């Protein structure tokens, strides 16, 4: 591959993309998921093929309770002891991981831009005593997820632009249960369909949207930098079309313009907790609220 064509077509985005089976060879795999229904929907979601023996297109939430009970009836006393021992190991590993996450969060705790760990911890403090549900963004290890409706999986393709409308739609689904919905909203994603805020305001959809504002389409920044370096071009131009600055976007102003409560940009970590609590009060009144937080890149 000495020529140009050969070089370009042999350069991979990632150096390694591998997989390995975690199951025993004779294990039967059965999936229960609504993902298979996407194939006929307006919004389709194709990813790497997951090879299973039986794929059941069904509602997981409706299926799991009876499936769990049926599985429990098959558990023998010996297996039960094995499960309990395994559970103790998992609990110990969880405690250790939480402790590690807390230690990791201390680094850049008082930094500005605000660390993502600080944002996560401050937000957890606001929601932990509520019947909460995350409808966007990763909560991280500092949050204690105990119920199946408290997390929302991503779009699958790591696409940009679906986060805000997805969070509004999910918050609408949670509204009838009275749950406190929260999302960590990426700024680059926000730029694609900000009109979803107006939709939430118009339909009185309660949602706390917290901007993870690193002032960039950050996954693109890193990708461009990586490829530029690999091509020995340097990164001088990597910010073109990837950074969202000059001017910085005032997301709170945009949000207020569409009729919802908003604060920010928050740059001092000491201001974050009080701002989140005020925004949470607005959400409890049945509105959407947005807090724009200027953050570290990741």
């Amino acid at each position: 591959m000495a020529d140009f064509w050969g070089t370009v077509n042999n350069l991979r985005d990632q150096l390694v993309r591998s997989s390995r089976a975690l199951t025993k060879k004779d294990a039967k795999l059965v999936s229960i998921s609504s993902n298979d229904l996407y194939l006929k929907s307006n919004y389709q979601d194709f990813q790497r093929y997951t090879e299973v023996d039986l794929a059941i297109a069904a509602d997981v939430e409706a299926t799991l309770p009876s499936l769990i009970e049926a599985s429990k009836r098959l558990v023998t006393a010996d297996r039960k002891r094995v499960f309990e021992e395994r559970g103790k190991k998992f609990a110990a590993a969880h405690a250790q991981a939480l402790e590690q996450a807390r230690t990791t969060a201390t680094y850049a705790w008082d930094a500005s831009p605000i660390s993502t760990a600080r944002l996560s911890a401050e937000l957890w403090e606001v929601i932990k005593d509520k019947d909460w549900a995350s409808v966007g963004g990763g909560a991280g290890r500092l949050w204690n997820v105990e119920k199946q409706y408290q997390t929302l999986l991503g779009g699958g393709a790591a696409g940009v632009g679906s986060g805000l409308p997805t969070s509004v739609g999910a918050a609408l689904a949670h509204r009838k249960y009275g749950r406190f919905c929260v999302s960590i909203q990426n700024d680059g994603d926000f730029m694609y369909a900000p009109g979803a805020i107006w939709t939430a305001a118009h339909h009185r959809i309660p949602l706390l949207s917290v901007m993870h504002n690193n002032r960039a389409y950050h996954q693109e920044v890193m990708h461009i930098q990586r490829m530029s370096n690999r091509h020995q071009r340097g990164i001088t131009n990597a910010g073109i079309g990837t950074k969202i600055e000059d001017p910085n976007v005032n997301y709170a102003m945009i949000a207020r313009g569409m009729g919802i409560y908003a604060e920010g940009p928050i740059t001092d970590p000491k201001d974050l907790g009080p701002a989140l609590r005020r925004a949470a009060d607005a959400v409890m009144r049945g509105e959407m609220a947005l807090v724009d937080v200027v953050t570290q890149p990741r």
Partner: protein
Amino acid sequence: MRFILSFLFVVTVIPALKAQTPAPATSTTPAGNAQNGKKIFSNYGCYQCHGFEAQGGAGARLAPRPIAFTAFSKYVRQPTGEMPPYTSRVVSDKELADIYAFLQSIPQPPPASSIPLLSK
């Protein structure tokens, strides 16, 4: 336009840069300008993966207590992971020393037990 470093880049899997080992000042550690190093760290885009305080993110945590300069320099020049190599033509030895001085200047954070939100 110069070739720039996002050099501490793509270190998601780089045990060598885990910043776990204290780095005592030795005769192999060149003198550097921490203030300039901080500026370079930001201007050259190192922060994109490692954070403005080198606390880590998409890339590894580099400070406080960075690894010894010899290992640091060797890795930047000849990385073994996904990180592209940065030769002295791209990042001068002086600039590397300044960045290292910046990493050394970052203080140890308080223990989690002293931060109310992390001690619950």
